[in-house]
């Protein structure tokens, strides 16, 4: 089967983002989506450290230590961009003004619960950042992650075992093997990579309630 690499996953997420959408891309994997936004759409990226209309990474010579994204990487600003403080930025996030937020995850449950901030392991130092605000705030929350851990465990689960970030907030999960839609009726497979049979995917995720939503 043709497992998607990270760039292909990012391109697949980007393909679904509408012209004119206001979008926050979470730290890590979702940041890659910025490199694949369709050139014919005007998509406005928000960074929770107070930027709307964020542009791509600058050339090394043009880096400005005071123009960074939420992942603390140098970025640029597009015409039409604006700056605001953290209070206003999280009012924007929490108040439901973003159309979409793409987040990474440790686990997503069949009811859309999200776990992406803390492994809960003994001795691990917790750090939450803006993850919980994004999880409750954006109009639509999607997750972008590899379906299986390095150890072969599925990250789409019946019930999260890691500490939660938000309850029933994820509506779509983009993975390297399939795309899953989550609603009150459960989980449907929206797309599968070439060469992966539905039944094989069901065995990988390990729960019977998975439905095939492909027309």
């Amino acid at each position, binding site marked *: 089967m043709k497992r998607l690499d990270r760039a292909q996953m990012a391109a697949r997420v980007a393909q679904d983002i509408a012209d004119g959408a206001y979008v926050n891309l979470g730290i890590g994997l979702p940041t890659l989506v910025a490199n694949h936004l369709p050139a014919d759409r005007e998509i406005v990226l928000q*960074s*929770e*450290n*107070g*930027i709307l209309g964020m542009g791509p990474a600058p050339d090394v010579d043009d880096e*400005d*230590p*005071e*123009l*960074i994204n939420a992942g*603390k990487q140098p970025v640029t*600003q597009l015409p039409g961009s604006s*700056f*605001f*403080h*953290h*209070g206003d*930025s*999280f*009012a924007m*996030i*929490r108040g439901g003004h973003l159309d979409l937020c793409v987040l990474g995850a440790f686990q997503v449950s069949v009811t859309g619960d999200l776990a992406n901030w*803390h492994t809960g392991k003994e*001795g691990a*130092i*917790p*750090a*939450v*950042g*803006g*993850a*919980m*605000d994004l999880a*409750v*705030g954006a109009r639509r929350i999607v997750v972008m992650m590899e379906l299986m851990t390095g150890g072969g465990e599925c990250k789409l689960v019946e019930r999260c075992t890691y*500490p*939660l*970030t*938000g*309850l029933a907030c994820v509506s779509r999960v983009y993975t390297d093997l399939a795309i899953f839609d989550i609603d009150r009726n459960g989980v449907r497979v929206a797309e599968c990579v070439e060469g992966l049979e539905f039944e094989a995917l069901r065995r990988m995720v390990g729960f019977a309630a998975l439905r095939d939503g492909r027309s």
Partner: protein
Amino acid sequence: MIDKSVATALQAVADVFDGARVLVGGFGTAGMPDELIDALIEQGARDLTIISNNAGNGEHGLAALLKAGRVAKVVCSFPRQSDSHHFDALYRAGKIELELVPQGTLAARIEAAGAGLGGIYTPTGVGTPLATGKETRRIGDRDYVFELPIHADFALIKAHRADRWGNLVYRKAARNFGPIMATAARCTIAQVTQVVILGELDPEVIVTPGIYVQRVVKIDGAAGAGALGVAA
């Protein structure tokens, strides 16, 4: 006449007392008041509670303050970073207390303090371990967590330009927590790159009105030089 200028960073932080609650601006290296933190280390106050987004990284700024053993408690959203080893070591040794707060809740609690509110209900964190033990309340068709304001004795922030009234403008993403922290402390100290003549800052573009700023210290060096130094 109003003139909030103070000659040196050390003078500006001279009265920070043992046990003080101190808001520290900055997100990553942008907007971090490095010279004020250095002055605070030199000044020697102990048992501080530091409220900031991060808990220091590398060897400078907050990390150095932590390393010097001056901090009893950190209230922040993101202590764990690739190079936050001073915080990590103190935390693992049980030598520092951590109150972990979602970033937007941290901002909202600071704003609530500045605005004189007694508390707020936020949807952030409902059903998660960070809401454990906190009051939750259903309002309309949604659950919210009750959160208290975060007041402080001092705020140390970095801005771009100031005038003698303490009016401030910031630069790009270095604005971050500065404007809200300025409102929540009894004494706000701003380090700036430039002090301009009163009236030179356009009244339409002032981000922090001088009423929120008690002291201004000009730090020599180009804009962003402090941050560049840390990045080096």
